[in-house]
């Protein structure tokens, strides 16, 4: 697929300034598609409203991935040497990749990161560690809750972008869709590993989801 994209790009490069084409063809970090446009993930904003909307979306996505990263770090700190260790490590690695991608997008587009990052740092770690201390099923339940919230959040962003202008935001949509699919995989993995068997599952799950939704709401603005 990479080669096909490469071939398509070279064809298109004829119409484009050579330097920008060269930049497109350069392999990018991560498994994401090489874009076929002269610019990177986001189109240059047409006006301040669009810039504000994209800023909010990217800020909250970045904060979300940062939080998820810290949750897995907390879980690993407790369960790292148990049977679940490799699985959690694998999910954590994927979250690290997501965070790196969003950090890159933020830096490129001069988006301000949320000022609450230190709070999400500590809160995420504590959430991961405390659920892991309750047992590995509780850790999986936490994963299920968080991933479900994140996936729903990504879905609403996808809907918003599709409503605005799907053609304009194709790269961003591709990235968000890919990340949403990976989050859903984590969610399913959690369910497979007996998340639902934890006592008080409904309570735990809803409490965590409420906290996540509040965090998303705040991070969009602050």
């Amino acid at each position, binding site marked *: 697929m990479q080669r096909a994209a490469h071939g398509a790009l070279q064809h298109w490069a004829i119409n484009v300034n050579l330097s920008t084409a060269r930049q497109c063809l350069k392999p990018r970090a991560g498994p994401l598609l090489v874009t076929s446009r002269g610019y990177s993930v986001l189109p240059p904003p047409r*006006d*301040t*409203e669009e810039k504000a909307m994209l800023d909010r979306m990217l800020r909250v996505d970045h904060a979300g991935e940062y939080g998820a990263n810290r949750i897995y770090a907390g879980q690993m700190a407790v369960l790292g040497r148990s049977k679940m260790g490799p699985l959690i490590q694998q999910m954590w690695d994927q979250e690290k990749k997501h965070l790196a991608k*969003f950090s890159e997008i*933020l830096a*490129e587009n001069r988006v301000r*990161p949320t*000022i609450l*990052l230190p709070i999400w740092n500590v809160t995420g770690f504590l959430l991961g560690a405390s659920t892991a201390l309750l047992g590995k099923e509780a850790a999986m339940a936490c994963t299920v809750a968080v991933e479900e919230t994140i996936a729903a959040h990504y879905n609403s962003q996808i809907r918003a972008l599709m409503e605005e202008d799907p053609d304009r935001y194709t790269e961003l949509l591709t990235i968000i869709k890919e990340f949403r699919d990976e989050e859903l995989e984590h969610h399913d993995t959690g369910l497979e590993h007996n998340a639902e068997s934890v006592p008080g599952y409904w309570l735990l799950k809803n409490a965590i989801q409420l906290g996540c939704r509040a965090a998303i709401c705040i991070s969009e603005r602050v």
Partner: protein
Amino acid sequence: MTALLRGLWVGRALRGLGSVVAAPCTTTVTTPRCNTLRRGLYSSALRPQGDSKADKTSSSAAAPSPTNLHERYRAHAAGGQDTTTAAGSLQGEASAEPATEPEEASSSSDTSYQDQSGEQEEEYETEEQLRGRILTAALGFVPLHGWTMEAFAAGAETLGMSSASTGMFDNGAGDMVSHFIAHCNSQLTETLAERHEQVRLGHAEPKETADFLRDAVETRLRMHIPYIEKWPQVMSTLLLPHNLPDGLKHLSHLVDDIWYYAGDRSTDMSWYTKRAALTGIYKTTELVMLRDSSPGFRDTWNFLDNRMRDINNMASTAKRVQATGEAVVQGLMGAAVTLKNLAGMNKRHTCNILVFTAAQASVS
């Protein structure tokens, strides 16, 4: 109010359609702050000629026939607020634009109107452009009159407009100050962008971050030198409650631009700490400059150098503290594991010890 209206009608008589710009503005401004309406109160009465400004003037560029234009103008003069003007609020509002884009396409009838009127009109411009011109002209009189309405009036007169057109600026000094600061910031951004381009193309050497920041702040503060006598008035104007948001916005954009071109691409708390530090340096240096009477503001630049050195020291101290902290934490973890082993709490070893002692017991 009526005296103002009369004055404005006089101005209009002096300059045909050109001064019409001023008149309806004051009569039709119903929104509290004229200066927040960046465009289009007038775009409906005027037909935007310049294509370069076409995107900004698209709202109600639709005035295809002279009769429509006259009707709309009369509606303005009567104080009626056109819906398009309500829509045309901030520069670059997306909401109004799509609706008016198709109308703008029909603005090729612009030229037909001009031909029909038979006069040799100067280019129509938006309110925004006119305000910009008056503000720029007024800046020339600031060293003389200060940041006051006299400077505006004098500036308007050099442009050949009635001094009553200062009625357009209901936020007087605030508008002028905001315009000046925006102008300086955009000049700085251009300079930084050019230099960035030069470095990217390899024509120039990249500077050290501290030097870059220092030079950027110095360049920006030097733009105040022609107005330095009256600068305290600017600072106090910016502290007024209705000017405070604008002032802070300009400052934050300035500092963000400087750091961006200095190469900052951070996405964590250091984004905030860096900008806060630079804001502190910039503001304190600006204050020092007010009191500086040394030749060429040498004391100010020395002060700036010292502050940059302080920040550097703080940054390197912070790094060292962090490294030391990490080493200490590792040492403590090692000590904790050792204690656990000694106390026999390390399960794997105690298991082995139990097995071993059991084996010994069974043997003996």
